[in-house]
């Protein structure tokens, strides 16, 4: 069965078109999100792990090593099975620090550019055989389909043959597609979907061939068992190689592939959200590998049964051909093509990024500053083309001399050399860059001497210089070379790491990598004070446009504004920009740019833990916390809430005056929400808090009592207290916690208390004075009494009477003053029935004697039955005071009306005048002693205070209505309610 060349070419090209079409329409959003971001899509995209070698070569491996071939799947399967432990930390590290390749990761961990460069070199050397393997598989299968009617391979070493040309064309087209599509980082999702499709196709093709092998050739599993019983040598083939050691070495060779192979790292760790968020990968990827591994032995045996005239590695294609099934043949061919294509695309992308980031960008500066993106894009395109060319040249030099298995071993053994360095990323902080460089170099040298050089130059033995020892080398000795190179590598790494010292930076990165993410978020100080400054600083290395664009992107990603000034936010901004830049031009160049132009101030490094960063990370990752960490986090949340909801204003400050916490009461008191100030410096908050807090935090006093500040135009009083918190890392470094107490209420109450205390003392003074006046008044009264007996003149007699009555009044006033200062001394049991009307009349009588005052008309409408319980003299005093006030306020010939009403228990009477009324601001004050609106010397200010005090003593109430006459807006009404005299009611 032969296919026309044009048909095969058409198949290949249409397949590529389909693959890139899928990527393209995914980017256009034509495939629903539920498909493109489904976990299955991601897991299938990881399937690029199974390259053409897993499609064809593994059959050969099964032929040579029996069950040992499964090692290829088991190593990687186990790594993914334990992904939450083995891979997730690496993936998290990769995401957090924007690491996109193993070289980036190693550079980050070992803090050395040389590590990146050497890793890239070793990776290139190791991966070129893998590229050659894919190309060889494509060339061979095309050749099998087209040239040879009876499928067989051309003789090896025939130079540039037709099939080499076909492979070259395919490589060229693939390179073109990769350049057009894959060189742009943005189109990642399309790539993932296309790779998922590629994996689906190859797993279906392989399973289809496997099913046809079992059911078409052996008539089902029963038939296969019978056939195996008839051919026991095949069963023996399964088990024998396991016993002779090399199968175990195979397991070692394949164990590290998931981490060290660039294409798997690229899709699996660097760009795969699944690895971090879900455990699905732990069972789904081993399941995928199972599906890939199941058909291996049936296909091998079917090939034997049909006596396929091809090497075992092409049985997958040979079986359908010999079955004369064109459909299945095409499917098998496409499966293989698909496997090779997928792996080549991702390998090239990953290697291009590595070479660019670790070789090109560090060694020469980008020329024109204005369009950095375009330069990077073109650089990447050229690199992609160069790597395809390199892979093809390697294939061409090898000239089909080696089987796919040989090439795969060559590649895998070299990538194995990264294992010690990678292992140390997470598990050995003492490993340093000298050890890593020496180990990797030693391992690679042994590999190159033992395998690569002999393969390229067809050597069988190698003579060691100087000592003339001849040692056998070459691909046949792969097992020894593996053990030796890895052993020497590991030993060198360990010994040199132990002997030499780590730099400070390296140790810091090592700690960062080894422990979990919250270990050392040390707060470092930036000397940049606004987001805008980032643009000006970065304009130097990146050019104005690029710098501005990068800062804007990072700001948008962090949801910050360009006016941002908080140090905490600026630190996050710096990290974000560094991450974005490192995905653009590699971790080394990015960190160099940032360290040169936006350096952290080293002096403050490691002083203070970045509480804000730690908090935000904890809340981000709380779902990842398990066991004790989760419990501790709950405890932290509880304590945080306690502080947050504390009904007192609390804030805490770092040593550099950065606000670390600002609780809810603080936000209410200062009217500044916590989100706005947390992470900013004290200098940035609003007045008057800024100066108050800065002054307090700098002062040596632990308390400030009653500081007066002005808030919204009104005075407020706050007390401040502070305490020092010892830093968690360094002993002797203190943060501060400050407590603010709003004591405005207390302050006002106290002021009022002091005021009334002063009034009371003045009252006591007045009482004392009154007492002293009492004696001369008694004298005057005695003299007036005597005058009555010494004269008959009626005028003199009347004058004497007047004097007596006036002195009587004076002594009553004096008594009442004394009484005022001893309020509450009257006993209620002494109260008698007091007829209000009579009291009022007596008061009117007395007032009418004062001829010099306003003459007003008193109208006494108080009911005669209005009888209250009280002291007659004191009630008269009330009337005198109220009526005299009313008279003084009234106009000449005005009316003062007295009225009364009653209810079951009380008598209510009122005095209403026609004066101007009482100003509202005075209403509160007129009962205070010594308050008067009269001219100085006119009133004592005691009248109404006394009224109030008397009414209070009688258990009554007093009320003022002003204006009483709302029509004319004049007059005041004093309404008094007194308890009735119960006996007089009965």
């Amino acid at each position, binding site marked *: 069965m032969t296919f026309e060349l044009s048909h095969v070419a058409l198949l290949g090209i249409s397949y590529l078109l389909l693959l890139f079409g899928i990527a393209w329409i995914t980017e256009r959003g034509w495939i629903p999100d539920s498909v493109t971001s489904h976990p299955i899509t991601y897991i299938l995209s990881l399937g690029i792990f199974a390259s053409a070698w897993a499609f064809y070569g593994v059959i050969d491996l099964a032929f040579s090593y029996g*069950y040992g071939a499964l090692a290829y799947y088991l190593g990687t399967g186990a790594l993914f099975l334990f992904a939450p432990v083995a891979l997730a930390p690496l993936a998290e590290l990769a995401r957090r620090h924007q690491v996109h390749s193993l070289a980036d990761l190693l550079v980050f961990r070992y803090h050395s550019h040389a590590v990146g460069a050497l890793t890239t070199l070793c990776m290139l050397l190791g991966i070129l055989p893998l590229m050659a393997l894919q190309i060889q598989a494509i060339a061979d299968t095309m050749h099998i389909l087209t040239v040879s009617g009876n499928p067989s391979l051309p003789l090896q070493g025939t130079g540039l043959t037709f099939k080499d040309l076909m492979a070259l064309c395919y490589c060229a087209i693939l390179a073109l597609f990769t350049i057009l599509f894959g060189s742009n980082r943005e189109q990642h999702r399309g790539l993932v979907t296309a790779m998922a499709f590629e994996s689906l196709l190859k797993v279906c093709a392989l399973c289809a061939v496997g099913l046809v092998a079992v059911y078409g050739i052996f008539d089902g599993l029963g038939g296969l068992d019978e056939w195996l019983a008839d051919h026991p040598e095949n069963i023996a083939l399964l088990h024998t190689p396991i016993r002779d050691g090399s199968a175990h070495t195979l397991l070692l060779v394949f164990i590290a592939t998931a981490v060290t192979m660039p294409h798997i790292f690229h899709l699996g760790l660097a760009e795969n959200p699944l690895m971090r968020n879900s455990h699905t990968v732990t069972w789904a990827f081993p399941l995928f590998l199972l599906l890939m591994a199941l058909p291996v032995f049936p296909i091998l045996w079917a090939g034997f049964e049909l006596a396929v005239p091809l090497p075992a590695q092409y049985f997958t294609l040979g079986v359908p051909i010999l079955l004369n099934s064109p459909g299945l043949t095409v499917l098998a061919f496409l499966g293989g093509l698909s496997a090779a294509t997928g792996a080549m695309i991702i390998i090239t992308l990953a290697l291009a990024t590595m070479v660019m980031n670790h070789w090109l960008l560090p060694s020469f500066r980008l020329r024109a500053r204005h369009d950095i993106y375009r330069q990077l894009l073109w650089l990447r395109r050229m690199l992609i083309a160069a790597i395809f060319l390199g892979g093809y040249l390697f294939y061409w030099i090898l000239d089909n001399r080696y089987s796919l298995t040989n090439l795969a071993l060559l590649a895998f053994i070299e990538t194995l050399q990264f294992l010690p360095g990678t292992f140390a990323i997470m598990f050995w902080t003492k490993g340093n860059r000298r050890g890593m460089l020496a180990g990797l170099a030693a391992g690679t040298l042994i590999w190159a001497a033992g395998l690569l050089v002999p393969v390229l130059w067809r050597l069988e033995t190698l003579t060691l210089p100087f000592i003339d020892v001849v040692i056998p080398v070459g691909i046949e000795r792969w097992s020894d070379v593996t053990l030796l190179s890895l052993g020497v590598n590991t030993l060198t790494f360990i010994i040199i790491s132990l002997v030499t010292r780590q730099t400070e930076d390296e140790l810091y990165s090592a700690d960062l990598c080894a422990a979990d993410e919250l270990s050392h978020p040390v707060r470092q100080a930036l000397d940049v004070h606004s987001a805008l400054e980032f643009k000006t600083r970065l304009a130097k290395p990146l050019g104005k446009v690029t710098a501005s664009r990068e800062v804007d992107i990072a700001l948008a990603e962090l949801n910050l504004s360009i006016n941002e000034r908080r140090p905490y936010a600026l630190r996050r901004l710096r990290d974000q920009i560094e991450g974005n830049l490192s995905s653009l031009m590699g971790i080394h160049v990015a960190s160099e740019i940032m360290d040169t132009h936006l350096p952290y101030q080293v002096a403050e490094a490691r002083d203070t833990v970045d509480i804000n960063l730690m908090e935000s990370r904890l809340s981000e990752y709380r779902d990842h916390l398990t*066991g004790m960490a989760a419990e501790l986090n709950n405890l932290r949340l509880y304590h945080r809430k306690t502080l947050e909801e504390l009904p007192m204003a609390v804030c805490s400050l770092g040593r550099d005056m950065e606000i670390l916490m600002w609780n809810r009461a603080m936000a209410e008191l200062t009217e500044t929400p916590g989100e706005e100030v947390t992470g900013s410096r004290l200098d940035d908050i609003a007045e008057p808090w800024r100066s108050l807090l800065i002054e307090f935090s700098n002062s040596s006093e632990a308390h400030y009592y009653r500081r007066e500040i002005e808030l919204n135009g009104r005075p407020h009083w706050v007390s401040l207290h502070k305490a020092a918190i010892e830093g968690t890392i360094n002993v002797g470094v203190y943060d501060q916690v400050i407590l603010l107490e709003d004591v405005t209420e207390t302050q006002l109450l106290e002021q009022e208390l002091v005021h009334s205390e002063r009034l009371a003392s003045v009252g006591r003074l007045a009482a004392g004075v009154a007492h002293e006046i009492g004696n001369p008044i008694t004298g005057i009264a005695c003299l007036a009494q005597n005058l009555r007996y010494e004269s008959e003149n009626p005028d003199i007699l009347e004058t004497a009477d007047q004097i007596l009555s006036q002195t009587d009044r004076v002594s009553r006033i004096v008594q009442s003053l004394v009484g005022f200062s001893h309020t509450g001394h009257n006993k209620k049991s002494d109260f008698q029935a007091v007829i209000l009307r009579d009291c009022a009349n007596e008061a009117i009588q007395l007032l009418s004697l004062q001829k010099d005052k306003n003459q007003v008309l008193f109208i006494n409408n108080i009911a005669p039955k209005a009888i209250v319980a009280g002291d007659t003299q004191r009630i008269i005093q009330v009337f005198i005071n109220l009526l005299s006030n009313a008279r003084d306020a009234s106009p000449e010939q005005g009316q003062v009306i007295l009225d009364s009403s009653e209810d079951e228990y009380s008598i209510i009477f009122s005095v209403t005048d026609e004066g101007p009324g009482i100003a509202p601001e005075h209403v509160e004050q007129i009962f205070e002693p010594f308050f008067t609106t009269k001219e100085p010397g006119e009133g004592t200010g005691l009248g109404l205070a006394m009224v109030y005090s008397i009414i209070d003593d009688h258990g009554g109430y007093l009320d003022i209505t002003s204006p009483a006459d709302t029509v004319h807006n004049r007059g005041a009404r004093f309404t008094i309610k007194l308890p009735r005299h119960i006996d007089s009611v009965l």
Partner: protein
Amino acid sequence: MTNQRLVILLLLIAYIFSPTLFTWIINPEGAWYRPYIMWVLVIIIAFVIQLRKKPSISRRHLHD
């Protein structure tokens, strides 16, 4: 980290039974697909573990 004792127990059991298991797997008398059966079992166990892991995560969501 969550339960060290369980891990130690598991390792002990694995150590004791691994030779028996390995002999059984590659026993030439048995079916050729025995290793695959073990493989499927491991996948099922991983799947069950993953299923049981989910509820605890959502519960913690409620707490916070």
